[in-house]
């Protein structure tokens, strides 16, 4: 597809072309510095490079073509939005990334200064007309996972067609009942949007599709237990990031190919860093495209990341939806059961997350854990302290960092990460 065709498409989506060009230039430079500079990368990473280079190009074209054929597009910010239902309604679901500072000044007309960078980012992208995914959405689904997002959706809803799902904050039976009813409400909203009834057959097919993608990501996660590490944490994070917006069938096939290559590489005892390189598990807040700052700092400090305990990582892929129930009601029950297992910091208590982190550290043979909190994210800031204590009890060294999308703290952050890595040698 030519640049001119891309541009015509972006104009049709009413993007701010000049600002959007600037964004793509920065993204390209950032990607070059952080990704293309890596040595010993997998051949399968070409898929990642291609998808990212066409992130606002070919994939948007596919989405536009699907829209022209009558499909609807649903945008989401959170792993609580059940893609099984979205796909069963014949719609496309895309994760809206919110990983860069853009339109921050405009965003602050709708948001308090103390909102986190992720919230400022999705509002900023919309107000500055920079994201072709946001502009392609027929519906954006929000969720009440934190006060910041919950209140931001009120303002955001004045600019996009919004559906807000209530996510409970506890895990008692009444909370599951609430979430089950929210699934029904979302199903009704999808049916109204698309004009398609969600049948048991369509939901079963969608569940198989989403599970297949989860299985491919689980397979990748398990292969990272190998020493030497067969894939960089940066590339693995990118795989998880791309899983939110690329076509699920293509993505699953490509990631399984990547895993085949990793198996061969592991059998040959090859990797992206020498055996014995300090191995770190990254835990905490989600890292949306292009929030690659911390993984880059870690992997340029003599360590390799072997797992992501995050929504853009294990939290999204750990649990499968049971495929055995028949009939819509039983399938909705299965969905409720699956999604209520998510160990998001919005729950109280959330002790299973601590167990999960310790188990991941052990399975992936991590030498330490780095906990990432996004500045002003209160739920994860609280849990950072708990994770620190739980890791001390488990005998796993842990470093907690809090940062945002800015680069001004990169020097101090690097010193802290490097000093932590020094203690692991």
């Amino acid at each position: 597809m030519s640049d001119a065709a891309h541009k015509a498409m972006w104009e049709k989506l009413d993007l701010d072309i000049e600002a959007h060009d600037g964004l793509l230039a920065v993204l390209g430079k950032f990607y070059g510095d952080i990704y293309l500079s890596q040595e010993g990368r997998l051949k399968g990473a070409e898929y990642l490079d291609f998808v990212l280079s066409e992130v606002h190009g070919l994939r948007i074209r596919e989405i536009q073509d699907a829209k022209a054929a009558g499909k609807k597009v649903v945008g989401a910010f959170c792993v609580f939005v059940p893609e099984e239902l979205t796909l069963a309604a014949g719609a496309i679901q895309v994760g809206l990334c919110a990983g860069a500072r853009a339109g921050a000044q405009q965003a602050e007309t709708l948001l308090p200064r103390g909102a986190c960078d992720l919230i400022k980012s999705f509002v900023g992208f919309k107000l500055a007309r920079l994201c072709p995914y946001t502009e392609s959405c027929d519906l954006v689904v929000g969720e009440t996972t934190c006060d910041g997002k919950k209140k931001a959706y009120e303002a955001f809803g004045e600019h996009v067609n919004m559906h807000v799902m209530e996510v409970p904050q506890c895990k008692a039976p009444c909370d599951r009942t609430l979430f089950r009813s929210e699934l029904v409400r979302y199903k009704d909203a999808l049916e109204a949007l698309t004009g398609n009834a969600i049948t048991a057959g369509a939901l079963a097919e969608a569940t198989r599709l989403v599970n297949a993608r989860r299985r491919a990501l689980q397979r990748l996660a398990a292969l990272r237990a190998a020493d030497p590490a067969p894939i960089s944490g940066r590339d693995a994070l990118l795989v998880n990031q791309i899983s939110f917006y690329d076509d699920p069938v293509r993505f699953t096939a490509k990631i399984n190919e990547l895993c085949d290559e990793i198996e061969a590489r592991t059998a040959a005892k090859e990797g992206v860093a020498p055996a014995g390189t300090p191995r770190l598990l990254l835990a905490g807040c989600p890292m949306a495209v292009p929030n690659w700052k911390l993984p880059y700092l870690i992997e340029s400090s003599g360590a390799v990341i072997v797992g992501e305990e995050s929504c853009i990582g294990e939290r999204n892929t750990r649990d499968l939806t049971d495929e055995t129930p028949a009939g819509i009601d039983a399938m909705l029950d299965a969905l409720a059961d699956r999604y209520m297992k998510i160990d998001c910091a919005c729950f109280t208590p959330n002790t299973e997350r601590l167990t999960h982190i310790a188990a991941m550290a052990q399975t992936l043979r991590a030498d330490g854990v780095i906990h990432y909190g996004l500045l002003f994210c209160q739920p994860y800031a609280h849990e950072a302290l708990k994770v620190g204590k739980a890791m001390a009890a488990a005998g796993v060294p842990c470093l907690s960092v809090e940062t945002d999308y800015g680069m001004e703290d990169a020097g101090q952050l690097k010193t802290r990460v490097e000093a932590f890595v020094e203690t692991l040698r």
Partner: protein
Amino acid sequence: MTQYAGLDIGSRSIELVVRRSGGTVAARRLPTTFDPLAQLRALFPDGAPDRLAVTGYGRELARELFPQARTITEIKAHALGAASIFPQARTLLDIGGQDTKAIALLPGGRVGRFEMNDRCAAGTGKFLEYTANAFGIPIEDFGRLALAGTHAPRMSSMCTVFAETEATTLAARGVPPADIALGLHQTVVSRTVSMLARVGLAAPLAFVGGVARNPCVVRLLGEALGLVPLVPDAPDMTGALGAALWVEAEGA
């Protein structure tokens, strides 16, 4: 004889320690300025030794000039340097130009838990320098002025900029300069104490970095913690010393 050099490139000053046959043979200190590369060239007119370890925030920069150099973080370097002077120390506090670090020391100068301030300069040498400047007195004399204070006003601002505003307000109310200076030193110490608590303060405490030259900070810290901090004769040289010791131990 093989020489081992340790270089600490901080935000305010550059320190160099050279060791030979297990002893320190040279120690030098220069301001960092805004052209640290020129300062480094001046430091080594005949080229740097082969066995060179660099620490401090400018450690990567130095490799442009000295490709043979190896780098370690200032956290590790200060721990090694301080432990060589005070082997009994269990906790280390380093307050430098733009960073404050609290480090739990393990045997042999290894690093246990550590805490470091993030992007904000509150509680660092920069805070004292900035506020001393507002008083119109040299940073070297600021601690002595504060020691003359008797009634420290309770100051709430950790932020360097707000602290100056607060100091100005107090001065306008007629609070003596020495008391205000004492109050400003208190804010540095109270921030430091909470950092030390987070790493699990254990005595003895070694105190290094340029701010360890400030007698008021040393006294207030001792009072707040109920101990006497161990301060080396040249507290700003421990990072460079630690780097030199490290490259020496590596043999290489």
